[in-house]
């Protein structure tokens, strides 16, 4: 795969390549999205509605949707219940939960990761081993027994959430621990949901997700969304991000408007890689990171190779403008009400440049004569 063009400016923009690599990595294992950070009620609700939108666009049966859903809810509640503030004993960047959803041929997979103390490991392992040793009937009995005993832990659970996940998924739960330091470990929990009750899902190696977790921690990525983008998924993403950006109103508003323009560009102008895909919306990747005091918003999507040169010159032109020139250009394009097939950059691109206050960084990766991959990155 050859790079067909180079970046604006002379700096090193390894993050742009990173965007494409992340996309490839996520495509490879069909990862839907990754969320990293604290899990609040609002964020949890938005993640659920985002998943809902995506299940709608893929046209799953109501039965499958319901099962994926209920497990999703259990997994997310499991994280919110067990996430804790760990103070100075652990780096902030390491102290965040992760939530990953992926889809393979005939199954969905949900993986969560959160920080636990080493001392909690023996109990968790034995609970999970016990749950995994039961057949469905035994599991049901065990569930009832725990409910009747009413022995709840101080976190409000008695492993009930774990039992529910095992029951609803109809499969064994995979889990793993990864040591962070002398006190803490990550606890990864992985549930597979087969679409057909009697089919056995492919076993997925947790190694890739552990690696991805390390990458998103290092890059301080808050969220990766890889999937079909349409107005509904855009709105869910916006509400997740609104809950995640702990900044003043002005910053939140700027990030908000940048995201709207970037994602609506994908909704309007991106193409599907395979022409016969029937999804409602276009595939794309979006991720946001917060490093060294600024936010970086990145998108990646397929476009027609034939428009690469034109898009590149539009971006270069907008990057070359400064101050009043940008303002004038904005006004000129604002008052152009023709159906847009002009050679000049659209209002969206100009707005991105003005709101970010920085040059737009981009790259194109030629896939074949018809299709290229376009990455765009904006710092704010």
């Amino acid at each position: 795969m050859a790079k067909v063009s180079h970046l604006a400016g002379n700096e090193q923009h390894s993050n742009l390549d990173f965007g494409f690599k992340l996309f490839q990595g996520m495509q490879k294992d069909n990862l839907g999205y990754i969320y990293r950070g604290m899990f609040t009620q609002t964020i949890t609700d938005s993640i659920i509605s985002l998943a809902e939108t995506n299940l709608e666009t893929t046209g799953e049966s109501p039965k499958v949707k319901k099962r994926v859903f209920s497990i999703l809810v259990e997994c997310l509640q499991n994280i919110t219940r067990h996430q804790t503030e760990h103070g100075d004993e652990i780096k902030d960047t390491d102290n965040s939960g992760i939530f990953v959803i992926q889809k393979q041929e005939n199954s969905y997979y949900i993986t969560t990761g959160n920080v636990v103390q080493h001392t909690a490991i023996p109990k968790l392992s034995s609970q999970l081993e016990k749950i995994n040793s039961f057949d469905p009937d035994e599991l049901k009995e065990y569930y009832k027994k725990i409910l009747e005993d009413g022995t709840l832990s101080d976190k409000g659970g008695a492993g009930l959430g774990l039992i529910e996940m095992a029951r609803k998924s109809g499969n064994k739960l995979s889990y793993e621990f990864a040591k962070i330091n002398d006190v803490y470990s990550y606890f990864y929990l992985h549930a597979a949901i087969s679409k057909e009750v009697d089919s056995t899902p492919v076993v997925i190696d947790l190694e890739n997700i552990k690696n991805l977790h390390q990458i998103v921690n290092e890059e301080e990525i808050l969220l990766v969304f890889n999937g079909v983008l349409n107005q509904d998924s855009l709105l869910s993403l916006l509400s997740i991000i609104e809950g995640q950006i702990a900044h003043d109103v002005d910053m939140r508003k700027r990030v908000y408007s940048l995201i709207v323009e970037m994602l609506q560009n994908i909704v309007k102008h991106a193409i599907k890689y395979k022409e016969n895909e029937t999804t409602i919306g276009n595939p794309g990747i979006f991720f946001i990171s917060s490093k060294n005091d600024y936010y970086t918003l990145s998108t990646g999507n397929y476009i027609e190779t034939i428009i690469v040169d034109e898009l590149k010159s539009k971006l270069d032109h907008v990057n070359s403008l400064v101050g009043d020139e940008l303002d004038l250009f904005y006004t000129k394009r604002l008052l152009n009400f023709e159906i847009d097939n002009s050679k000049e950059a659209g209002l969206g691109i100009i707005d991105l440049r003005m709101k970010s206050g920085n040059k737009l960084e981009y790259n194109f990766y030629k896939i074949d004569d018809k299709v290229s991959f376009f990455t765009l990155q904006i710092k704010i």
Partner: protein
Amino acid sequence: MDALIIEKTTDTPRIVLDPLNNLYEITDRSLPEDANGFYAPVFQWLTSFLDKPENKIQFSFCLEYFNTASAKQIAKVLLFLEKLSQKSEVKILWKYKKDDTDMQAAGIRYSKLLNVKFELLEV
């Protein structure tokens, strides 16, 4: 003329065009995917209104956010109002929340483009 009232949604604004109560306003957020389609009924209404307008009209905008696709549609509405001001007494009131520099700047930009009574108001 009958009023046109469009209730707000998560991504579209509330629009009230009501001659009987002398109320004309566009409020909240505007980020529809298809801004052309969303604003089409508004232009249809305004076109008929231009034929027999009221004598005095105050048109308010109080937006918290709009995308660039909506920015064009808003510009179009404003140009319509400028045209209307040849027949009626038109005043545009652009309201923005305190500290919302974005909406304030947008109002200033629009006001410079138009030759019509235009007031910016911090609310």
